[in-house]
């Protein structure tokens, strides 16, 4: 009746072969996911890194009478078609501000237009044959060059790809995040403290808990509808402003902070609370003076992660109008502003080839900030990790 090891092993061969398959397939699945990640990042780097270089051209600027009306007149006509119009537009103002310039001329490195830029980078462009030959010639003599693109980090948005920059969006993001954090952090921590330390186990508490879990899973665009209908239409908060954007994102970030804070509070052992009660602390004093300080690293980590999540959010901000065209960097909570992901979205919608590069460049800036934030959270967690 009983089989020997050899008989059984022989039977098992097929099953072992079949079993090995699951291991390889599942490993392949993980590999595939990893491959996606690699493909994605290499694609973004490939498309975005050129954005950090921009074509500059050396031109002879002749501050003559005509140039006070039309900047184009200050340059050689053949060259001026290669120069960014953003520079041409500056010339009349420069002469107005500094009348001594009139009648003089100088050699300057100025932004080339995006067509020249794309041509130098080997992308599709609209330059004519003659213009290409001229650019080649100038490049030969060192009068056209790809240099580090400072404009990208110092300008706001622009309809001209070569002078479009991310700064206005970065400032807008900072302002929006300030609002988000100012609202979500205290309310989130207070909610978590209440649920974890004070709340009786009743229906209301359960309702709040279920509700928080549910809020974390509601599509973000619905928060945008709330922002539009309640904050803008009902309370009259200015549309497109960091205030309304920040408030909307605060509601989205709230569950993340609450859940993280609760975990952090739960990881503080009860012995700490008992010790505090033992020396006559009230419940609130025990929480304020002993539990919260110990939970703080965990709370900070969770808040940073929540912040990073909010920072990448776009859909609700589109609904509350934060996709405005913002050419100037303005520090205000109530004026129209844009944020980094919204800027990326705006650029992605521009038909011009040069904007693809800007979009990917903006994405790289955004991703770097997000990675830095998450790395901070990881470091914070590692540093303060404590075993009770």
């Amino acid at each position: 009746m009983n089989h020997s090891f050899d008989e059984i092993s022989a039977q098992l061969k097929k099953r072992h072969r079949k079993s090995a398959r699951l291991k390889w397939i599942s490993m392949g699945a993980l590999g595939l996911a990893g491959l996606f990640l690699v493909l994605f990042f290499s694609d973004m780097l490939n498309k975005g890194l050129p954005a950090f270089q921009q074509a500059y051209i050396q031109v002879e600027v002749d501050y003559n009478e005509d140039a006070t009306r039309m900047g184009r007149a200050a340059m050689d006509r053949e060259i001026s078609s290669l120069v960014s119009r953003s520079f041409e537009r500056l010339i009349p103002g420069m002469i107005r501000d500094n009348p001594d310039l009139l009648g003089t001329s100088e050699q300057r490195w100025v932004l080339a237009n995006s067509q020249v830029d794309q041509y130098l980078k080997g992308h599709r462009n609209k330059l004519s044959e003659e213009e290409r030959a001229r650019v080649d010639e100038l490049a030969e003599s060192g009068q056209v060059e790809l240099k580090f693109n400072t404009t990208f980090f110092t300008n706001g948005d622009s309809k001209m790809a070569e002078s479009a920059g991310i700064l206005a969006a970065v400032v807008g993001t900072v302002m929006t995040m300030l609002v988000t954090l100012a609202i979500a952090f205290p309310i989130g921590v207070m909610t978590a403290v209440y649920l974890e330390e004070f709340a009786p186990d009743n229906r209301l508490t359960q309702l709040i808990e279920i509700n928080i879990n549910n809020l974390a899973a509601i599509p973000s665009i619905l928060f945008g509808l709330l922002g539009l209908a309640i904050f803008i239409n009902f309370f009259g908060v200015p549309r497109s402003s960091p205030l309304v954007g920040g408030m909307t994102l605060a509601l989205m970030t709230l569950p993340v902070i609450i859940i993280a804070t609760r975990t952090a509070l739960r990881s503080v052992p009860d012995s700490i609370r008992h010790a505090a009660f033992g020396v006559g602390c009230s419940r609130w004093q025990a929480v304020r003076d002993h539990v919260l300080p110990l939970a703080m690293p965990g709370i900070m980590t969770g808040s940073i992660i929540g912040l990073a999540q909010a920072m990448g959010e776009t859909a609700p901000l589109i609904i509350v109008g934060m996709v405005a065209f913002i050419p100037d960097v303005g520090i205000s909570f109530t004026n129209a502003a844009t944020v980094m992901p919204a800027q990326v979205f705006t650029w992605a919608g521009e038909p011009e080839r040069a904007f693809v590069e800007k979009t990917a460049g903006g994405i790289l800036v955004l991703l770097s900030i997000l990675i830095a934030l998450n790395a901070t959270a990881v470091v914070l967690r590692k540093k303060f990790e404590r075993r009770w």
Partner: protein
Amino acid sequence: MQTNPLLALFGGALLLLGLIAFFIGRAKAARVRAAGVAMHAQPDQYAWFAVLATAGPALLVSALGAFVMLLLGAEIPVPYLLAGSLIIAALGLMFGINKAKPDFHARQAIERVIGWILIGAALISIFTTFGILFSIVFEALRFFQMHSFWDFITGTVWNPGASFLVAAGRGDEGGAAAQFGSVPLFAGTFMITAIAMLVAIPVGLLSAIYMSEFAPARVRTFAKPTLEVLAGIPTVVYGFFAAITVAPIIVNVAGFFGLDASFNNAVAPGLVMGIMIIPFISSLSDDVINSVPDSMRQGSLALGMTKSETIRDVVIPAALPGIISASLLAVSRALGETMIVVMAAGMRPNLTANPLEDMTTVTVRIVAALTGDLEFESAETLSAFALGLVLFAVTLSLNLVSVIMIRRFREKYRVNNL
């Protein structure tokens, strides 16, 4: 804008009153104590109580006033309101200082107030849900007054711009009135969600199986956070990736097989959305698989099952409720995903089963309706809220089912584990 200096003045006055309350309250309590009378609380606590008595009611009254003005449209002149609040603050100040007596439990009083503040904070999350619900429901109701709910749910033509055609004298082409049949939008949404799930569920689940059952510890500690990076990438970035990189690849591949694909095909956003969702499935499934008690694996191995047979026939069936719950959450997320489809899917409502054609989704139409230069009162704008209502209802039920399933799962193994 003229209210701003007024508000600043109000804030300044309130701050001043608060400071006065603090110092007088503390001084008084300290004096009582110095006289040798035993008190129920510390001087600072009396001081803080005085501050609370000063600022609390005043702020409440002004907030209430502001709310009444907004909600009921009643005109209360702002200066009067603020002045009234300040008077209440002064009254509170006197009350608070008066209370600085030995037999008053200042600490308990403060902590009661703190307790209420904490409850208030906790209620904000409830208000948020209701806020979402109300803002959507009210506007949606207004939409359904203009267009029948039945047509909205069953209609197969979504053509909000048709009224313009009528105005342009081309009424014959688009029908007599704007049509809001949402079936094509839902069809598009489900098509893209289905494609995303076809990518995310197998890859995510298998990755989770590998990480929790096969991978050496070193691979696991590295692979898990790496996968989570996929979840941290903003959706707008995925949208760009789908539109600029993936869609042309799909078109080329389809062309290679002699098929005609649109650049706004459903495959590209679906595929990229699937990639985005992989870590949701994998990390939730990983947790669930890990919480299947080891005794079950051992029971199977001790019967002479191979590792894979154990996983397939014992571990996965045991973890199934958790895995389904994770998948439901993922579906809910895919249905509500906006940026990827806005950037990579089409704008044209298109009822088709061919994923290579362009099609649009609910979220795309919501964005389109709310970002144009239309009047807020127009049917098209309001249709966004009607769509939002459906989205809310569907995702809410998916989330709830998923939460209940995962809770059952946890309870089951807690009981069995004891």
